[in-house]
Every structure is written in structure tokens, then in C-alpha cells.
């Protein structure tokens, strides 16, 4: 009996073990099938790099002392510690140079000084970082004491002899760590507030080879991408720039090349994807607080069967906020049919393929019945995604930008176009004649930062017009401004030169993120009576057999939209009592956490 019982026990345990193994195998099998498309994190492919970044004081306005009401920049020397005022003594230091990528682990960071004479006095000071991602130089209206500070700080209390010609350092590791946690940095500023006794200060050199410097040792990870794009480099540092404007170079961790003349290699470069390649590189400096894994969720299969990125909210449901946004959600359009817009698909059809920077894709939804700030009402349904980010200067020289546009008139006629829209030449408000794109630029004094593009996509059949769509897109807070003398140079809208050479009023503009936008839908014209409702074109809208882009155009002329015509020929976008061939609508896409590559 006991033996029988024991046998039954054994059988029971064995059965349970078998069931458990089968269950585990089943889970594994289901996981492998269901997660086949999961764009997982490829951290296992990351390489860890140890690097050193050196930043220096480059201009006289990058170092300043405050002592009560007294203020001074430049000069042959500055002081660290406490002056006459024991409550309002400051040293401001603004360093520029090598870029430290966002998220880098700071092994050590130190500010180094060279005294202009041998000195021995007790110095107490509290060192905080300036939290702005693009700290400005110092001036009487922008003193060190007025700057926003980091939470992290370092208290210094020392009573040592500083000998002339030698270097002495203060550790600021936790401060720099906090700064790079939020953003990649090539400009880092500190505020040193005196906290010691009156006149407890040391004098240091301010310029040239003896100017204070910031030395940062850090480690960062890089991710491997397509074999055709070099990513892992031995020393991913960027040369220090001699200009005052911060030069926001692409992150060395994901940029395929820094040389724009390099052989194009954009054949489906994977970015942060795991098992599949996603077209469209996304740098760490645009991810914001979200991980690449989170960002990689937002993909769509394009008409060519390849994977492209698509619209996503600025704030992911998981709670993190991206460093960029894409404006209106196309799915909120009355005419959205469930097909996500594949960002980058259009430009990927160029020969060679072009990868428009991901953050620049902006979408606009103008539903019928929407009333704008002028009291005009949209009569039709339209939505479009257009590439127009203001985070860099490339837009000043790129003549064509991708446009994915959808329009359905109140009469039921459609015009679904995709192609490289002609944005015209670029100029400032001061140019005569005005250009199709009007941007803010050095040398043209204006009252506002408004930038507007007139973007046209024409579908032509061997030169004969079939359809024409114009959407004008505008931004009130462009991140960068244009240098007409060098359109490839980065000039931030809050930089001193922009403040001096563009704006009549020196308002703070370091919060500019290119997210305050408006767009004009129209004019739109059909020239397709008796034609086909589907055409295939090249990327520029020229109808050609075997074309890579599909256009859907009702086979009508514009005049078929009876009841919605202006002067009998143009599609009226607004109500007849307030008739225009364009409908303008302004909407902010701004959220806290947007970066300067938006």
C-alpha cells in the first residue's frame, strides 16, 4: 500500500513537472512569434567609450563678476569667492567646446583656474550649473545672478596657496551629470556664488591659454547600425568651435557621418531597432526623456514594404516626454482612413534615398467646421504632414521638402498627394523681391520671429498640370535663424548675435522650440477632368510609368466643386461671406521637455 502510494506520489510530481516544462516551452514559443516585430532595445550591441571633453572660455562676455550692484565682464582677470558683498558675490563662467552627449556617465568634471599671481586666502563658494540648454553670454541685463540653476551644486571651501602659473581645480562632477542627464551639451555655464567672509577671493586669468577651462571625463555607449554607416568611432569628440554660437553637431553616437559630401549610404539604415531596420535615424538628442525602445514603437510599414517611423504624441502613454513633437494627430482628421503616415517614405524614394531628420515632420489637421482666430470656418477636410523643423540650418538650403497631403472637398472630391514639395528660395523680410520662404536672418531687423514657407506640390503629366496643392506652414518660435552670408551655420534665435542683428526687442528667446505653429490649407486646384483617378509619379510629382509614389486625384476640374468656388475658378476654403482660397489655423504643439532639435 505504501509502495503504491509512493508510486502515485512520484507519478504526480512527474506529471506536474512535465506540465510545467510544456508550459514554459509554450510561453517561449508564443513570445518568439508575437514579438517578431518588436523593435527591441539593442543595448547588447552597445560599445562603451571613455572620452574626454574640453571646454573653454572663448569670449570676454563669457566670464563675469558681480559684487552687489557692481558688474564686470572680461578684463584681464576675474575673481572667485566673495567680494565686498557677502550675499551677492558671483562669478559666471560660460564654457564652450566639445560636446558631451546626453546621458553620458560623468566620471569626473572639474573647473580649472590659473591665478594671475601667487595668492593664499580662504575661499568659500557654491558652484551651481546654469540649467538652460543654451546659456547666453553675460551682460548687464543678463547677469550670473539672474540665471536658472541646477538642483545639484558643489560647495567649495579651501584655504590653500595658489601659485602663479599653476593650475588649480574645483570638482563639479554632480553638476555636470545633472546637465547632461537632460541634454547633450557643448555649452555649459556655471554660477559660483561666494559664501565666505568678505573679500575672501582669489584672482584668476580670464583669456587666452590661461583662461578657465572645464575638463570632463565621461563614458557613453554607442549603438551599431547598418554596416554601410560607420557608427562606432574610437574618439567620438567634436572639434571645439571658435564661434560664439553654440554649434549643435549631431550626436556622435548615432550620426552616420559628419561630412555632408560623403557617399550617400541611406539604404534602410537601422537606427535603434532590434530585429528589423527602421528607416530614419533618431539621435539621442531628440529622444528627450524617452528611450529609443519607446520611440521605436511608432512605426508603420510603407507602400514599399519597409518600415518607417510615424506620428506619435509628444508625451508617450508610459509617461515620458519626447524631445520633439509632430503636431496634430492625423488620426483626428475626419478623412483619416487608418493608414498612418510613413515619415521619410517620400524622400526615401529619391536617388539616392534621403533621410529627412525625423523631428522635422510636422502634421496639421484642418477639419471641416473648424473656426480659426479670424472667425473663418474651414469648409472642407484636410490633413497633411510636412517636413519643416527649425532646429538646424539645413532647411535654408534644401529646396524640396516632403509633403503627404490629403484633401476632401465638401463636394466629395479628393486630392491625396505625396511628393517633394517645392518650398521656393529663402530670404528675409528685408529682401526685395520677397522669396517663397521668409525666415529671420542676420542683418534684417524685425519685430517678430515669424517664419513662413509657401510649399507647392504639382502633379504633372508630361508637363500638363493635373493637380496643384499649396500648403503654407509657419512657425512663431523658430529655434534657429539664418546667416545670409553662410546659410549652413547654426545661429540660435536666442544667441547674442541674433538678439543684436535680428530683433528689435531683446526678449528672452531661449525657450524657442519651433512648436508654435500655424498652417494655411490651399489653394488647391484640380485639372483632371476626364483623367485617371490614380497616377504614379516620381518623387517630384511628375507622372511616369513605374512611378514610386501613388497619387489619388478625383477626375474633375476645380469647377466641379459647385457651391464652393471663389470667382468661379478657385476652391473656396472658407465660408462665402468671408471667402478665401486658404484656411489658416494656429495651434501650439509645445510641451515641457522639447529639445532644440525639434
Amino acid at each position, binding site marked *: 500500500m505504501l509502495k503504491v502510494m509512493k508510486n502515485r506520489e512520484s507519478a504526480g510530481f512527474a506529471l506536474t513537472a512535465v506540465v510545467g516544462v510544456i508550459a514554459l516551452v509554450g*510561453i517561449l514559443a508564443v513570445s518568439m512569434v508575437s514579438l517578431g516585430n*518588436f523593435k527591441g532595445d539593442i543595448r547588447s550591441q552597445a560599445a562603451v567609450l571613455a572620452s574626454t571633453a574640453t571646454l573653454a572660455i572663448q569670449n570676454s562676455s563669457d566670464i563675469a563678476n558681480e559684487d552687489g550692484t557692481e558688474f564686470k565682464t572680461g578684463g584681464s582677470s576675474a575673481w572667485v569667492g566673495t567680494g565686498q558683498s557677502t550675499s551677492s558675490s558671483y562669478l559666471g563662467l560660460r564654457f564652450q567646446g566639445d560636446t558631451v552627449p546626453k546621458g553620458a556617465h560623468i566620471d569626473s568634471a572639474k573647473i580649472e583656474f590659473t591665478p594671475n599671481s601667487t595668492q593664499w586666502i580662504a575661499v568659500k563658494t557654491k558652484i551651481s550649473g546654469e540649467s538652460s540648454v543654451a546659456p547666453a553670454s553675460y551682460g548687464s541685463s543678463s547677469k550670473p545672478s539672474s540665471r536658472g540653476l541646477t538642483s545639484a551644486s558643489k560647495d567649495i571651501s579651501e584655504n590653500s596657496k595658489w601659485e602663479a602659473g599653476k593650475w588649480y581645480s574645483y570638482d563639479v562632477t554632480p553638476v555636470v551629470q545633472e546637465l547632461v542627464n537632460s541634454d547633450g551639451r557643448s555649452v555649459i555655464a556655471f554660477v559660483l556664488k561666494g559664501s565666505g567672509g568678505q573679500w575672501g577671493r582669489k584672482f584668476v586669468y580670464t583669456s587666452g591659454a590661461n583662461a578657465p577651462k572645464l575638463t570632463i571625463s565621461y563614458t557613453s555607449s554607442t549603438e551599431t547600425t547598418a554596416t554601410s554607416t560607420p557608427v562606432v568611432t574610437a574618439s567620438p569628440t567634436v572639434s571645439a568651435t571658435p564661434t560664439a554660437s553654440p554649434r549643435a553637431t549631431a550626436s556622435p553616437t548615432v550620426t552616420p557621418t559628419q561630412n555632408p559630401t560623403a557617399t*550617400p549610404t541611406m539604404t534602410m539604415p537601422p537606427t535603434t531597432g532590434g530585429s528589423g531596420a527602421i528607416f530614419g535615424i533618431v539621435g539621442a538628442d531628440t529622444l528627450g526623456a524617452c528611450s529609443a525602445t519607446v520611440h521605436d514603437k511608432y512605426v*508603420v510599414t510603407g507602400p*514599399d514594404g519597409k518600415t518607417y517611423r510615424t506620428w506619435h504624441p509628444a508625451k508617450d502613454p508610459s509617461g515620458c516626454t519626447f524631445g520633439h513633437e509632430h503636431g496634430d494627430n492625423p488620426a483626428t482628421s475626419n478623412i483619416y482612413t487608418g493608414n498612418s503616415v*510613413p515619415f521619410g517614405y517620400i524622400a526615401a524614394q529619391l536617388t539616392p534615398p*534621403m533621410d529627412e531628420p525625423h523631428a522635422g515632420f510636422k502634421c496639421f489637421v484642418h477639419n471641416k467646421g473648424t473656426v480659426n482666430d479670424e472667425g473663418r470656418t474651414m469648409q472642407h477636410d484636410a490633413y497633411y504632414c510636412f517636413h519643416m523643423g527649425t532646429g538646424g540650418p539645413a532647411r535654408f538650403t534644401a529646396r524640396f521638402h516632403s509633403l503627404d497631403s490629403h484633401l476632401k472637398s465638401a463636394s466629395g472630391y479628393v486630392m491625396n498627394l505625396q511628393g517633394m514639395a517645392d518650398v521656393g528660395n529663402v530670404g528675409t523680410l528685408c529682401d526685395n523681391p520677397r522669396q517663397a520662404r521668409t525666415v529671420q536672418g542676420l542683418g534684417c531687423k524685425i519685430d517678430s520671429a515669424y517664419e513662413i514657407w509657401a510649399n507647392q506640390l504639382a502633379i504633372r503629366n508630361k508637363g*500638363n498640370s493635373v493637380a496643384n496643392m499649396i500648403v503654407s506652414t509657419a512657425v512663431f518660435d523658430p529655434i534657429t535663424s539664418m546667416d545670409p552670408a553662410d546659410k549652413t551655420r547654426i545661429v540660435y534665435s536666442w544667441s547674442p548675435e541674433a538678439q543684436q542683428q535680428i530683433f528689435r526687442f531683446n526678449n528672452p528667446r531661449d525657450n524657442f522650440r519651433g512648436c508654435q505653429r500655424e498652417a494655411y490649407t490651399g489653394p488647391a486646384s484640380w*485639372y483632371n477632368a476626364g483623367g485617371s483617378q490614380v497616377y504614379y509619379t516620381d518623387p517630384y510629382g511628375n507622372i511616369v510609368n513605374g512611378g514610386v509614389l501613388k497619387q489619388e486625384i478625383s477626375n474633375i476640374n476645380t469647377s466641379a466643386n459647385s457651391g464652393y468656388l471663389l470667382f468661379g475658378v478657385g476652391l473656396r476654403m472658407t465660408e462665402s461671406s468671408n471667402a478665401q482660397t486658404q484656411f489658416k489655423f494656429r495651434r501650439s504643439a509645445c510641451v515641457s521637455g522639447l529639445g532644440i532639435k525639434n
Partner: protein
Amino acid sequence: MKNTAHKNKDGNIALIVVVVVLVAVGIGFVLLQSKTSMSTQVSSLPPIEERVNPSPQSGNKVYVSKADPGTKLIVDEAELVADGYIYVYSDMAGKQTMIGKSQLLTAGVHNNVSITLTSASKDGDVIYVNLVNKDGAKVLDENENAIEMQRNVGIVMSHYENEY
């Protein structure tokens, strides 16, 4: 002995319950991960041989497949209802300036027409190719739009690649 057997039976049941729970959790995890992958698909393109377009209704046509930098432009196809020319314009600061003109073409179809440009086009330029009648006026289609092709010279777009 009965108690021992009973306890063993209870133990087996407990183990089975644990396994079932683990399986349920595992399936739930997998389903959750599947939902967070938001890949959708847009309509796919038909095979290239099926991407055939109708010819324009107008008897006037002009087509240029590409424009290379330099002083020569090849017009792949031009068809004119009446004798005329092909003019090439450059887009200089938004103002079209004629930089090339074909020889007089008779009515009909012409292929691979070579046009010498008076000023060399360079990478990034935008040119416009128009049909023009004998007296110099642009040929219009039935909608009174000029018969015109626009081309971006060279491959300048590549320099914009991922630079922001």
C-alpha cells in the same frame, strides 16, 4: 498514511495551480508586448508593370527624366501640336531666366533633344522646361497652364541627410 497521501495530493494540486498561473501570466505578458508594438501598414504599391499611367489629353508634352549639372540638358520626349521650341529657364532668386533654347522643332514627337545652356547649371539648381510656340509664347494646356516640367539639378538633396 491517508494523511500523507492527502497531503501529497494537495501538493500536486498546488503545483499545478502555480504552473497554470505562470502560464496565464506569461501569455498576458506576451499579449501586452504585442499591443505596444504599434506597427500598421499602409496600402502597398502594385508591381511596377502595373503602374501604368494614361497619356495626357493635350497633344503637347514635354518630359525630362533628370537634369545633370553642366551646360547640356537632354529632353527625353517632346511632342508639339504646332512648330515650336523647348525653352529652359533657371530659377534665379525666384525669377525665371531663360538659359537654353532648342532649335525649332516641327510639330510631332521628338526624343532626346539636346539643349545647350548659356550658363552651366549646378547641383541644387532648379530648372524649368517649357514648350514655347514660334512667336515665343508659352504653350498652354486646356486648363491654360503652361506645359512645364521642373527639375532639381543633380543630387543636392543628399547633403540634407540627417543634418538638422
